[in-house]
């Protein structure tokens, strides 16, 4: 059996693993990344990237369809069609390009990528089943970056008919009737895209609100838009199972009901991948269902680190990337620690939602500025939504920034920068924001909070 040795061994080439691999390589550490699938993880292969590609395609097609009717822009278009197989091919092209990109970046950093399924023998030894047979890798530092998988509902086991987000993103045909269980951001993103592509979408959510982690103000523009798109919402509803003809059975306070479905998409959350490859034998300290880590992502076992979705919420690619950098730098002895003030979160719904830092609470003071008063929003025919700041009244310190609106995902950077820099309202109000942009609204929100909004 082939044996190899290295300084750092990373299991999983998702956003956490491959970034850790690149940084470790940059720092001169002899590093191996083991990946059973294509590099890039859920995010690049079956998550963020493909979903964004499909959302874009759906938006474009939906826009084209709206031009069939009379419109303010005076554009007329007859019978636009979409070759969805071609759309998927385009999407796959992007994914492949990025797969290759990740491989190239690892190579550039002199980090070896080994394709194969890893199983942990002990905290310093990992067996990898590659296409050329098994090999043993011995390492000084082990980094677990194995990610997460879609959660299954016991009443709705995955099948050809009951699918997860992974399958939903590679459907070759747009289903006529799509029932979605789970009104979180993954279900809403795919559901909105499918609705725009022509599917008859029904969303079933147990909570009394879609996107239950956000407040009603942030969610309302999204709910309004879903309604306009003809998406049916069942709130406070529980999925009970599938009927023989494939319909989704649900129960609400008003009784049970069947929802016709060509496909049933289950998006009730994701579970960390911590079984099936020997990590349970390490007997690591757990934090609920996640692996417990400290501020340098070290687990309870010496020289074993964990990053990304296996370490808990929020299960976001950029959090895993930041953790990967910290681990690599920690291994070479740099004083890096997790000291982030916020992890931004974006929902690519329509309109988009972005949140960074503290959400409104009974103690926090907020100010909200609507896109209806923003020139750029008007020119894009999207005046729905707002920017909101949560701040400390005494010090003017900005504690949180949120926005809901078309294209606001691009405000995530400014929001996160403001929070990490410990910006005050005056810092934002006194920074010139280019006109005409949606970003001006951020400056106006700060002015509003300071009591001297200019454009409202």
């Amino acid at each position, binding site marked *: 059996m082939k044996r190899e040795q290295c300084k750092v061994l990373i299991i999983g080439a998702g956003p956490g693993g491959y970034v850790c691999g690149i940084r470790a390589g940059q720092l001169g550490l002899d590093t191996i990344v083991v990946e059973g699938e294509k590099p890039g993880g859920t995010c690049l292969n079956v998550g963020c990237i493909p979903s964004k590609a499909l959302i874009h395609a759906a938006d474009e097609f939906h826009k084209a369809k709206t031009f069939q009717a009379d419109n303010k822009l005076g554009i007329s278009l007859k019978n636009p069609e979409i070759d969805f197989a071609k759309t998927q091919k385009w999407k796959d092209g992007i994914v492949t390009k990025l797969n290759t990109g990740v491989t190239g970046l690892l190579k550039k950093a002199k980090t070896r990528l080994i394709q194969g399924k890893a199983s942990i023998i002990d905290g310093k030894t990992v067996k990898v089943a590659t296409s050329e047979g098994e090999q043993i890798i011995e390492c000084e530092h082990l980094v677990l970056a194995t990610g997460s998988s879609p959660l299954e509902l016991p009443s709705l086991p995955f099948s050809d008919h009951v699918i997860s987000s992974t399958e939903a993103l590679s459907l070759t045909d747009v289903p006529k009737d799509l029932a979605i269980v789970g009104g979180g951001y993954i279900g809403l993103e795919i559901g909105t895209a499918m609705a725009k592509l022509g599917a008859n979408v029904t969303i079933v959510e147990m909570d009394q609100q879609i996107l239950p982690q956000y407040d009603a103000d942030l969610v309302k523009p999204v709910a309004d838009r879903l309604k306009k798109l003809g998406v049916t919402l069942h709130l406070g509803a529980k999925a009970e199972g599938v009927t023989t003809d494939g319909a989704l059975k649900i129960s609400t306070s008003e009784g049970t009901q069947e929802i016709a479905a060509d496909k049933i998409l289950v998006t009730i959350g994701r579970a960390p991948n911590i079984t099936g490859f020997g990590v349970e034998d390490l007997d690591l300290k757990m934090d609920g269902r996640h692996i417990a880590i400290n501020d340098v992502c070290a687990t309870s076992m010496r020289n074993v680190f964990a990053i990304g979705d296996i370490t808990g919420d929020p299960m976001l690619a950029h959090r895993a990337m930041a953790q990967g950098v910290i681990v690599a730098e920690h291994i070479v002895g740099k004083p890096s620690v997790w000291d982030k003030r916020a992890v931004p979160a974006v929902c690519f719904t329509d309109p988009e939602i972005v949140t960074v830092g503290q959400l409104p609470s009974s103690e926090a003071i907020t100010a909200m500025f609507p896109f209806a008063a923003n020139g750029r929003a008007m020119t894009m025919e999207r005046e729905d939504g707002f920017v909101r700041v949560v701040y400390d009244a005494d*010090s003017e310190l900005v504690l949180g920034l949120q926005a809901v609106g078309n294209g606001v995902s691009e405000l995530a950077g400014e929001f996160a920068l403001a929070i990490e820099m410990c910006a005050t309202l005056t*810092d934002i109000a006194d920074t010139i924001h280019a006109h005409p942009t949606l970003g001006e609204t951020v400056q106006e929100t700060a002015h509003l909070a300071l009591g001297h909004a200019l454009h409202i």
Partner: protein
Amino acid sequence: MNILAIKLPDVGEGITQAELVEWNVKVGDFVREDDIIAAVMTDKATVEIPCLYDGTIVQTNGDIGDSLAIGSDLVLIETEAEGISVEPDEVEQSAPEPAIVEEVKTPAPAAEKVVPVVEKQASTPSTSALAMPRAEGAPVLASPAVRARARNSGIDLRLVHGTGPAGRITDADLDQYAQGPSQQNGGASGSGRAKREGTEEIKVIGMRRKIAERMSKANANVPHITVVEEVDVTALEDLRAKLNSERGDKAKLTILPILSAALSRAVYDHPEMNAHYDDEKGVVIRHAPVHIGIATMTDAGLMVPVLRHAEAKGLFEAAQDIQDIADAARTGSANREQLSGSTITISSLGPLGAIVTTPIINLPEVAIVGVNKIAIRPVWEGDQFVPRKMMNISASFDHRIIDGWDAAVFVQKIKSLLETPALIFVEA
């Protein structure tokens, strides 16, 4: 209602002023007869001043550390007691009026009302030195670049005062912190231990001031000559052990009573050492009695209680007396007689006695004998080293009166007595 003065009583024979060391009352306090209103310090005794009436304090004169004239008004008190009223504003503490209080109750005699000095100022550290840069639980605000720099420099940002908006820690704050300014709570070094900053001011008052004055005077005015000699105390220690083994449960002998006996014997042959030098009058007064001052450490500072008539005391009697006067000094209950009148002094630091000390003469005496610690050292005896119990004596003399030769002879005399302790008890 009358406003009556309570005057600073005569707290010691022949004393004209006393140092205020403690206020127990402030203006507005209601006090009762015999409540303690203040403490003053004279010579080496601290005296509490009791209140003479029930009433309300309307004026206090003098601050801690001030010297007050005996007979001056210490406080004015508004009381229903009979007396000649005074106007608070008219009273000047530096110019005491004639006695104005009728039925003056004799203040407690100084010697009976001795309390230990409490130097309260010493226990109050400067608060600014301990101030934390922000309230507990308040967020530590710094940009990622500042945080990175702090990490790389090993600075704990929680300790850094932020001057930016909303208390944000700036690059400049880090610079200032690294330089260790007084307003910061110390800088971090590679060891991970914070530097300490700030100072603590301790007012030198009372006993400490007295000690300081006396030491300065002795050291500045008296040219000291110090002679150090080593003494083989093996025989002396054997004797002491023998005596102690027969004492049963009774108090054991320390080396001090034996040393006192040796000194008494030595000054019999060297009366010039048991003397006071009054340099203003140009007179040396040789004393017939041997009153040995025993330098004693107390919580309040150095005190020198006196073993009187050491020449007439048996060993165990001296041991008991030394014990008694030292205890009295330490508890602050020593009277004037126990604290004054020594003719020669012994200074011993016991087990901390070091190898050599340079004792400072207890004015107006002319000699002080310091004893250093006993240690077993190898001593060459003819053809071999033998372990002997050795002790140094470090004796200082007033070189104006005592010549080096005489000093050396005196020290040799003490050495001879201590090495052959039987000689101590041979009649002169």
